[in-house]
């Protein structure tokens, strides 16, 4: 991989291939209740204890939109510098599965709530602008549990109906590093906005990866394959690596790449075809007649805009301008909200340069060693600030005594 340009290139004898990646991120909306019902959304509850008659699709039940989830989606859209659509439509995506009680998922197909936007990545080789194609709201399905019984599958509907934002990027990512940076950035933006907790272990951030390859210096995109539900950054990287090489091998052998959905097998470290063309899903999307088109007024959007906190890009700029930090330091300090807040608390009463060094050096090392996040830091910002002041006093004293 070329570190200077960031491209992921695969070389075979005479040919050099460029890898093109797009991501579909499913981010669980931070909200107390589900997208179309009042059931709670708390993670880790006993199976089937957070299920209303709507979530279990009882006869005669109707969905009612949760306004808070709309607000969260709009907020996220603003954070992605994206166009908020005044009118969007909820569609039914029809398919049968045991953990999909309605027999359809309510999603947004042709008219999503959020349109095109941008995410800026700070790479070692400079800034990269990644296009956002759209963001739409949809319901999550329940969970099928296949390994509790040799004969039966168990279904937990706690997750059924929880609001998800599907954020679709343009095929603008060119390397594993960029994929990594993109996910971290998106996660950071949503955590700043408090619209998604970004917790991959709990499944509140899941991704489908679209991968294609093309000969370097060609414009036309290759046929893409979608890799479903790769749920950690590590697996995502392994899956992309495998898939890109598989596609290059096919091309080199003069074979055709089928546009298809593939599954990453974490045990065998390979992707494989999920379904054949014969049983490919026809989702029969159509507008959900139980829900009217969603209309969002401009003053609703403006009000949310006025409530948007300072986001990482702006914060970074301020840190550089105001505190004279290097872009590298600023990046580290703004990457998550808690760190930036901690930093600002510390520097209230102590030297910026010294504080930066202490936080990104000693403190981060200690936290890493003990596997803690900054929110769980046993040293509070106030105490660190005191310590730094003490160090300054000590230094000054020592210097004044010429020791």
């Amino acid at each position: 991989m070329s570190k200077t340009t960031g491209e992921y290139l695969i070389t075979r004898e005479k040919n050099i291939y460029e890898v093109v990646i797009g991501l579909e991120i499913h981010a669980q909306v931070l909200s107390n209740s589900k997208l179309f019902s009042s059931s709670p959304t708390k993670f880790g509850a006993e199976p089937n204890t957070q299920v209303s008659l709507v979530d279990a699709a009882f006869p005669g039940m109707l969905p009612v939109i949760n306004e808070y989830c709309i607000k969260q989606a709009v907020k996220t859209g603003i954070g992605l510098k994206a166009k908020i659509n005044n009118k969007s439509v909820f569609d039914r995506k029809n398919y049968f599965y045991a953990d999909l009680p309605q027999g359809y998922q309510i999603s947004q197909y042709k008219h999503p709530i959020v349109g095109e936007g941008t995410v800026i990545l700070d790479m070692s080789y400079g800034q990269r602008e990644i296009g956002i194609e759209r963001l739409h709201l949809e319901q999550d399905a329940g969970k099928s549990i296949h390994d509790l019984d040799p004969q039966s599958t168990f279904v937990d509907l706690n997750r059924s109906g929880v609001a998800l934002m599907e954020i679709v990027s343009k095929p603008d990512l060119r390397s594993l590093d960029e994929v990594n940076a993109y996910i971290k950035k998106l996660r950071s933006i949503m955590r700043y906005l408090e619209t998604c907790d970004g917790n991959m272990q709990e499944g509140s951030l899941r991704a489908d990866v679209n991968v294609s390859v093309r000969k370097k210096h060609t414009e036309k995109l290759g046929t893409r394959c979608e890799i479903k539900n790769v749920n950690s950054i590590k697996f995502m990287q392994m899956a992309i690596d495998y898939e890109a090489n598989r596609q290059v091998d096919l091309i080199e052998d003069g074979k055709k790449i089928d546009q298809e959905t593939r599954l990453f097998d974490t045990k065998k470290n390979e992707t494989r075809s999920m379904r054949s063309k014969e049983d490919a899903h026809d989702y029969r999307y159509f507008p959900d007649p139980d829900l009217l088109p969603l209309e969002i007024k401009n003053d609703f959007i403006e009000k949310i805009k006025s409530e948007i906190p300072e986001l990482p890009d702006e914060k970074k700029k301020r840190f550089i301008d105001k505190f004279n930090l290097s872009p590298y330091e600023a990046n580290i300090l703004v990457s998550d909200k808690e760190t930036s807040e901690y930093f600002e608390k510390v520097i209230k009463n102590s030297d910026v340069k010294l504080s930066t060094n202490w936080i990104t050096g000693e403190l981060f090392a200690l936290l890493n060693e003990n596997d803690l996040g900054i929110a769980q830091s046993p040293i509070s910002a106030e105490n660190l600030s005191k310590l730094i002041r003490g160090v300054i006093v000590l230094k000054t004293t020592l210097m004044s005594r010429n020791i």
Partner: protein
Amino acid sequence: MSPSNALKQKLVSQQDRIANSKTNAIIRTRFDKVSSEISDSSNTLSGKTILVKDNIAIKGELLTCASNLLESYKSPYSATVIDRLESQGALITGQTNMDEFAMGSSNETSFFGNVQSPIDKNLVPGGSSGGSASALASNLTPVTIGTDTGGSIRQPASFTGTVGLKPTYGSCSRYGIVAFASSLDQAGPMAKNVKDCALLHEVMSSYDLKDSTSIDFKRNNYSELLTNNIKGKKIGIPKEYRADGMPKEIEDLWIKGIEYIKECGAEVIDISLPHTSYALPAYYIVAPAEASSNLARYDGVKYGFRSEGENLIDMYERTRSEGFGNEVKRRIMIGTYVLSSGYYDAYYLKAQKVRKLIKNDFDEAYKKVDAILTPSTPSSAFKIGEKTNDPVSMYLNDIFTVPVNLAGLPGISIPAGLDNKGYPLGLQIIGKAFDEQNLLNIAYAMEEKINFKNNIKEWWIK
């Protein structure tokens, strides 16, 4: 005798009549439960007994939609319309038979067997609210509740000489009503006269936050404001409803209806609804499309009937093959087909465009008139079995009623005469959206002029 004792006697007598009736109109009764609900309160419907169609949820009761698939399913909650009726003191004494999942025009697709008309045991009562209509016509109940997706209240009302109102879409909450085609379904009252319909409608109709398609508009005390003074009202007669091959009796009935309108002092105006002939084909795309999706939840996983299988797909196939009847399966297949990729634009999308044109036709017409008068059905009730092997001829029964659902308008069928066999015929009045009051007033005035008598004594039920 105290009011509650009188009521208890009334209930015993109703229970008796239902037990002795032969029409199969009622699937089950709940006299035990209502006996304990009797009080001396004096609300709008205190002491009034009502039968409701078996696709409307009543807490703790079976809710079968006359389908094998839900044969043993009990609803854990009540529909909003049920809550409203009960809060006004109504006693829901039983649940009526219907076409399976409200799909049918003759009540022959019920898992519990077909319903007979009290007029003639070989005659269908219409459908899909055929049980409600039959029970009403044979005096088993003073009023019933039905649902109407393409004519399922008005057509059986017409076939049985009763009154049936399909309210404006968004007027009565759909919460707790098992969905057939969500954008068309409305519950509504069926009664022996317009006044009872008005009273029931005023209780049922409400703005409901639990139904996102419910509409917040000013609702009247329809029964109190009911008047037979319709002088100066303009009633449209749409030329496109003169269907090819329309029986002369229907044509004559319509002409008679026009005369009644004039006698009431209203003005008759010829109008055109140019896209009428496209309504039925559009309906039979939109309704099955929505149904195919709405009925996906009956998969044997969570509730209702399940037929065990080798694996999940096998279980689905067995459950739905054995659980649904032929008409339901036919519509699921049509609906699945018209939504399939490659066919969506040609069928579903086109049908939605047609729907808009039909709505526009009515909007245009209502610039000139207050309401529209048409026949309710293209014929009187037909014989049991006569159309079961010919779905299209069955579907044609809805030709005058479906445009009203597609446009979301209120419509009422009132009995207006008998054909040469002595079978009732109905006239349909179509109103402006949310203008049930004018609609009911016109029906009320006409009812008085028509002075229709259901000659129940001569009917086979006795």
